């Protein structure tokens, strides 16, 4: 059964969608029935730019195991990357998004 439960987070970033690259400011994250995947439930993320109306999105549907593995790889990449490059220069809009 579909749950309507969505975790929403503000972010700073870019994503490439059907119209090319775009700024994104929001991720809607949920674990529910997919639209395209054959899995019963997926961890889905919709990246959007709510500031521009949120009509375009870049979407992924991941298995639960894949999503968990991705989380650890993201954290590992951040740790090793920041160790190699130093602390990142904070985006001008980062503090607003993080607030």
């Amino acid at each position, binding site marked *: *059964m*579909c*749950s*309507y439960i*969505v975790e*929403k987070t503000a972010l700073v970033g870019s994503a490439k969608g059907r119209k090319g690259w775009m700024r994104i400011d929001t991720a*809607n994250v*949920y674990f*529910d*029935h*997919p*639209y*395209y995947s*054959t*899995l*019963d439930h997926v961890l889905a993320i*919709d990246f*959007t730019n709510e500031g521009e109306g*949120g*009509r*375009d*999105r870049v*979407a992924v549907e991941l298995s639960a195991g894949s999503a968990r593995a991705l989380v650890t790889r993201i954290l590992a990449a951040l740790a090793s990357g920041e160790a190699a490059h130093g602390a990142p220069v904070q985006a001008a809009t980062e503090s607003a998004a993080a607030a």
Partner: protein
Amino acid sequence: MSHYRALQAETVKFRGHNGDQGEAYYARPIAAGKYPGIVVIHHLPGWDEWTMEVVRKLAHHGYAAISPHLYFREGSESPDDLGARVRAAGGVADAQVMGDVAGAMAYLHAQPNATGKIGIIGFCSGGRHTYLAACTLSGIDAAVDCWGGNVIVDNPKDLNDKRPVAPIDLTEKLNCPLLGIFGNDDANPTADQVNRTEAVLKRLGKNYEFHRYNGAGHAFFNTWRDAYRPEQALDGWKKVFAFFARHLASSATRVAAE
């Protein structure tokens, strides 16, 4: 030529809640004759290709079937994008869905091929909508709830402006025969919730028929999903068509399932 069948399927315009004009997918046999109508209510992910396959399947079996696009108000982008937007906004309001279902029923009634009999079938959140429609709309002759969850709402915090009432609390108003199809491995509705729903239907003396399948979970009719269970789905569809034939179709119009 006794086995000859033909159907026509297309996107049509219909008037939904508040008279808003939206799209619906409509399929019917093209042979001259009268056909009972069936409204198909899609699941939360959206107005997808499997839903349209169901509409054509019903037409193949001798029904004029229509599935209103419940998210048409969101724009003209692809149904999956509209579904994502609706999900992020917390879903569509029950009242709006009921208005759209009533509008789809009116569309069917207005067709020259209509017998006047109307059934309704919904899947997942559409199963819940089916239960609601069977309790709140008039003019439904048979309703099929396929694994609709949240018919029972145990936590009052799950009720909100869009979904203000637990469908189970409307059961007394159920005014048509109800068929329920469930997988025993489903997490929503659980087997216990199905038991509790059945207990209420039984206590209120309602005309209902529940079928539960072992080795099946949620959405086990859905051929696009790993959850598809062919044996259970084939039997479930037989139950669905027998139910609709009993309550909607006359012998003159029914196309026998083969």
